[in-house]
């Protein structure tokens, strides 16, 4: 039995949505960041699936680049998180709301 490409896509959509939901629910900044990583991974799955479908290498390379970008983002993001923690002494996103309206 072959797996329909659509299934991969649906799986990625599910993962992506869970990622979005996690972003909405999680209070810890680091976890929120993790959920973004989850979303990126979901997108990666789509890329790979399409790369397979089109027999195109470029799709896979895109994933490769996404990983690099994710790594870079992680470095910067975690640095920012540290900076926030330093000034606010909390990792709760709900308490990072000095600015509003």
């Amino acid at each position: 039995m072959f797996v329909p490409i659509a299934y991969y896509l649906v799986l990625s959509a599910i993962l992506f949505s869970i990622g979005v939901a996690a972003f909405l629910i999680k209070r810890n900044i680091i976890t929120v960041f993790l959920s973004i990583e989850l979303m990126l991974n979901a997108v990666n799955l789509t890329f790979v699936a399409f790369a397979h479908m089109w027999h195109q290498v470029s799709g896979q390379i895109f994933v490769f680049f996404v990983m690099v970008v994710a790594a870079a983002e992680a470095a910067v993001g975690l640095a920012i998180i540290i900076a926030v923690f330093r000034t606010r002494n909390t990792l709760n996103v709900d308490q990072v709301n000095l600015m509003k309206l």
Partner: protein
Amino acid sequence: MLARILPEVILTLAGVLIMLVDPLLPRTASRKSIGWFSVLAMIAAFAASAWQLHLAPGTAYFGVVQTDAFSVFFHLLICGTALVALLAAIDSVRPETHDQGEFFALVLFGTVGMLLMTSAVELLLVFIGLEISSISTYILAGFRKRTGKSSEAAIKYFLLGSFATAFFLYGIALTFGATGTTRIAAIAAALPHTTTPILAWTAIALILIGLGFKVSAAPFHVWTPDVYEGAPSPVVALMSTAPKAAAFAVLLRIFYGAYPSIQQHWWSLFWILAAVSMTLGNLAALRQQSVKRMLAYSSIAHAGYLLVAFTAFSPQGVAAASFYALCYVAMNVGIFAVISHVGGYDDHLWSITDYRGLAYRSPVLSGAMAFFLLSLIGIPFTGGFFAKFYVFSAALQKGMFGLAIIGLINSGIAAFYYLRLLTALYSKPAEGSPVLAVPRMSLTLGFAILLAASATLLLGVVPRSSLDLAQRGASTFFSPTTPIQATTSSVAMQKGN
């Protein structure tokens, strides 16, 4: 080959050089010289971009980047903006803030990303460019590490930005799924024959979400006020302008370059985004007390005006959008340059009340500010007016009456809050309120403001040359020949219209 990415190379080299030199300087030494160096690099990049205009339009690096009138237009725009922002920052970024060296390096690198965004014709490179510019702005937004607001701005911007990037990426993935390629020209060629057009429709929506976030179009604008408020003003001067212009360039490239065949599907999305952005931005700005937040909302509204041009699927539309971007950055970078000086690096003057009577303390600064505000309102003989006029003219030529009416009523409403600030400038300071002194304006800042102001004025009075360039750029997308080989026919094109 290198000629096609010459500005980027110059800036990258300059950035690397700064990184190398900065640690060698004594910790306490002033980094002004580095600032001047980066200014020089930026001027060089500007000149290089201008020089690119003489190249025949074409691609390089296996069809990854393309230099044409369009890319050059945005190159010049971005370099110019960054130049003004740098000039404004040299004196506002105080010596006591460390990381000055990093600041300038980050600006240069970020500019590289933006430049790449505008010339890339491969979505991968667009993505990377976007990330470069975004990440550098995330960092810059959090540059006032000691204040809670700045790091909060950084984290908000960062998290939401990454969130939106994921959508953008998803959109690219689906595009890839629909067409099997990520080259813009190839997408355009493959799209009419795709078996799964629905993927493309979904893809454009997702890409629009991602980029809509970058240009702060409602309802993806939510980050804007908070980030503008929290980020240091010199940074806001940059990030409210150049990255946005770059994102608009990308929007134009992608939608006009890659998806012209499904234009019926996307123009209504732009219609909605434009209408919502204008209305929401302007209404929310009405009661703002904080100047920076007010301008943040105003920038949302301006994104809306700009998006109006997208609905007109015509060379005029593209030219109008490009031109609007140009005018918008000119006046916005100018006003933030003023604010970064008046408000101070730490934003101790932030509310409209604080600006009362500024005209009595520093007439030149407030005159400049008033001028930028007038341009933002859209008063004739300023760039803001001409841009707005051109955008709505393009939209109306396609019969977008509803949108034009919404837009222009909005510009009327917008006048209210700009005027609140404007009249505050020229009012007597409130009795009893402490009058905070505005430091003397340095020559550098004066020059920056002068640059922005004269650009804004010239764009309103003699917009012809920049308009020509924008129209040439626009014709890239509508040339009867393939987009990549767009040649001198562009000039003939605009005459036809």
